[in-house]
């Protein structure tokens, strides 16, 4: 069975600066890939290229076999994307916003309402459904972004820092949700919370200065440091001294 996400030599330059440098990997159904790396490593830029928002300087990506550049609409139909910072339209209500996204995704009538209800249920947003998004707390806003990505139950999920700003209960909820969905989907999440990698990811990629420097299971990665802790491995691999070498 072919991988649901295929990334091949993906490169992005901003002027002379190379933000993403020949990144290649694939993610199969059933995998949850943790995308790790220090600030500015190129995680969000890679995810934006995967979602077809940023145009790659070189290389390409496919979602469920559809090229994200040349077959963008089909690729995006199979993709749920949570952009960094979970942007939403502040003046809309939670329900209004999700209905808008459902409409764009081609749902109408009963099915549209059902999809919205399901997404609201999955992200426990029921109490806030009629509130304008601008009046929500940060964690609730993030959940609205997540609900939007899950609305169409896509085979591929790309979530840029999905648990950032959530309280411990909600972090637990969202991790549980990701684990439950993992079997039928290919999921990529970026995070700075390494315990999350242990908790939900079946595989981790560390990227630094735009390059992939590690690609292994969390357990394998952890063994690369005498302490056996992912934190220490991350620090040892991505601190400036190590990268300069």
């Amino acid at each position, binding site marked *: 069975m072919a991988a649901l996400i295929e990334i091949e030599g993906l490169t992005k330059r901003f002027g002379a600066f190379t933000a993403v440098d020949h990144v290649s990997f694939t993610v199969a159904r059933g995998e949850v890939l943790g995308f790790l790396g220090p600030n500015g490593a190129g995680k969000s830029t890679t995810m*934006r290229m995967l*979602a*077809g*928002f*940023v*145009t790659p300087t070189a290389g390409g990506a496919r979602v469920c076999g*559809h090229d994200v550049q*040349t*077959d*963008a*609409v*089909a690729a*995006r*139909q199979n*993709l749920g*994307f949570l*952009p*960094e*910072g979970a*942007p*939403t*339209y*502040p*003046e*809309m209500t939670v329900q*209004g916003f999700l209905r*808008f*996204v459902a*409409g*764009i*995704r*081609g749902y109408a009538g009963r099915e549209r309402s059902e999809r919205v209800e399901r997404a609201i249920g999955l992200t426990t947003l029921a109490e806030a459904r009629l509130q304008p998004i601008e009046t929500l707390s940060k964690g609730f806003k993030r959940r609205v*972004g997540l609900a*939007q990505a899950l609305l169409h139950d896509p085979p591929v999920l790309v979530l840029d820092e999905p648990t950032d700003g959530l309280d411990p209960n909600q972090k637990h909820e969202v991790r549980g949700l990701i684990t439950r969905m993992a079997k039928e989907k290919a999921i990529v999440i970026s995070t700075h919370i390494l315990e999350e990698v242990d908790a939900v990811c079946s595989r981790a990629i560390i990227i630094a200065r735009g390059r992939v420097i590690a690609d292994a299971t969390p357990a394998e990665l952890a063994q690369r440091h005498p302490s056996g802790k992912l934190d220490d491995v991350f620090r040892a691999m991505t601190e400036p001294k190590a990268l300069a070498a």
Partner: protein
Amino acid sequence: MSDGFSVRRTFAITRRELAGYFATPVAAVFIVIFLVLQGVLTFNLGGFFDRDQADLVPFFGFLPWVFVLLVPALTMRLWAEERRLGTIELLLTLPLRQSEAVVGKFLAAWAFCAIALALTFPFWITVNLLGHPDNATIACGYVGGLLVAGAFLAIGAAASAASKNQVIAFVLALVICFIFAAASYPLVTDFISRGSPALATFARRLSVIERFQSFTRGVIEARDLIYFVTFIGFWLFLNTVVVDHRKAD
């Protein structure tokens, strides 16, 4: 891309945008300023009552110039706001074509201008109370006014896509709209014809106001309609190209 331009998705964008205008004070402020400006210009400067004629000639005379000023204020936030909020990343990663987002936003702004224009009905009622105007001519004037608004909106939308900065988008749109409005005025054509008379004729044919004036005389010609459709189409195409090019900058 695998599937064609979708009217359904375009209208979904239009509905959201239009609701957005009315969710903020933008709509009310714009409409009030538009009506006050039109009123002051028509009744005071235009000498609406002194002319002793039952028509809307002064009203339509000022209309394009009011649009030159106000339409860029309406369009400057069209794309800049999506950039500021980061929602452009959400919008353009939904399964839609960029041209659908461009046309959807344009139609919302156009529908909004149509509402503003419709709210000038007291002018029309006034002339009908004072005399017996040619209402068919007035209707043609309104059609022309809507087309002028569309032409300027298309310019403004493209300008908004070109700059993250709303002030720059406003000024850019204002200047381009002004050029297309003023292109038929002697001030401009005299200047151009000193260099090349052929160019002056060309400038006049490109002028939005020259076209609009035949509408206000009660004439709707196919070539004028084609002009406006081509004009709007050109700027929306440019808008799509610019959005595609600069969306992630």
